[in-house]
């Protein structure tokens, strides 16, 4: 009986303690700056070097480039850029290798959708995802 009473005392002591749960989803849940959420993509910064697609462990990035519309300029610009969030594991390797920081992480993490097709995010969607962009990108 003594052990039980001791345990009860601990429970009673905790009754008056402050609440530790969050009011999510009624209130948004703040994540630390480094948090790895859905990527934001800057099409104007991309140089179509393909490094993000190559380093991706799950092969969820598909991108194509096209010739620069200005014939005097060399290199390519981005044409399409898709991330398949069915298999993206938000591992951060794509942003780590990007030489121009064209792809960066944001703190947005709400990815639930009603259909699988909606998990394919294209260039426009990723460009518009520009809230809570991570400030600190290169370690």
């Amino acid at each position, binding site marked *: 009986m003594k052990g039980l009473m001791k345990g009860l005392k601990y429970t009673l002591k905790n009754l008056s303690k402050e609440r530790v749960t969050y009011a999510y989803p009624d209130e948004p849940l703040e994540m630390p700056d*480094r948090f790895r959420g859905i990527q934001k993509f800057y099409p104007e910064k991309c140089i179509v070097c393909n490094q993000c697609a190559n380093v991706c462990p799950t092969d969820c990035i598909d991108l194509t480039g096209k010739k620069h519309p200005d014939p005097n300029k060399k290199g390519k610009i981005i044409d399409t850029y898709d991330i398949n969030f069915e298999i993206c*594991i938000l591992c951060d*390797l794509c942003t780590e290798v990007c030489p121009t920081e064209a792809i960066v992480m944001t703190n947005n993490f709400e990815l639930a959708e009603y259909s699988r097709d909606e998990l394919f995010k294209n260039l426009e969607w990723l460009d518009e995802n520009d809230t809570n962009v991570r400030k600190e990108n290169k370690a």
Partner: protein
Amino acid sequence: MIRTEEMLLNVGPQHPSTHGVFRIVLKIDGEIITDATPVIGYLHRGTEKLAEDLQYTQIIPYTDRMDYLSAMTNNYVICHAVETMMDMEIPDRAEYLRVLVMELGRVASHLVWFGTYLLDIGALSPFLYAFREREMIINLLNEISGARLTFNYMRVGGVKWDAPDGWIEKVREFVPHMRKELAGYHDLVSGNEIFLNRVHDVGTYSKEDALAYSLSGANLRCTGVDWDLRKQEPYSIYDRFNFNVPVTEKGDAWSRYQCRMAEIEESLKIVEQAVEQFPSEGAIMAKVPRIIKPPAGETYVRIESPRGEIGCYIASKGKKEPYRLKFRRPSFYNLQILSKLLKGENIANLITILGGIDIVLGEVDG
């Protein structure tokens, strides 16, 4: 006339106390288990095979998903294996960061075990308290690595991020808080007569059995074998810290409980010392070539994860992908003794014994 016959009972694969998808087929005679066959593989993703097509940096996020309760030790074992092959010198600051996150991870992992074990055998409140403290650790690790469980924090040659401003102070403040709460857990559970009756002399095995079944971690130390790789074969910078290896003698569920609870205390000691010795400046990455290509050959390293000895074997042909990668996943090995322990036990003890082994299905199935 009462006719009795043997009954086949299927537990799982979605049984809440299996913490994942684990199935066990029981043959029962009344309430006594006569035979138990574990069925595993529901969570098999073929990590080792996948790794053969991946570069070493790309394998690290996959290791997060093996033992998802202490992903930092998994991150470390693969990095440590590649570093050993390439004979790399790791900067001090990176090593301290690694030890800090690994030991915090160990505390978090044991807290999950403590909470869910008690939950399985019928006590709800310890689970809530344990997860309250675990959430603090998860927040600390989230702050430094950017994810709550799948950290992907370590890299070959160091770590990805330096500690953010004020992080070390937060860890320093966490240690006394955790100590206080740990004493509270002992008040809450360790003296509780109902709990003691459930775990004393349940699932007992001998030292010889433990060694024969290749058990490791607390499952081995509960039989009186003093074997902790942090002490016996110090890797990283564990030789700089002063800590004990908790060993208990009886080999039953109660001694495993004692062992793990004492390990939380020892991990806190390491965290405390690492914070004290933490170098104020320095690099967090060694000089690493852009494409990591370990020389041809093979290597095996092993470290102490919260569940036991986790090992990583790499056979390399000098390419940027491994030729063969093999993880010695402690949960898988520890689980093997289950059928032996269950034979002849009362079915009410099934959950006590299974929970006491502390398995993570992501690791069992690989």
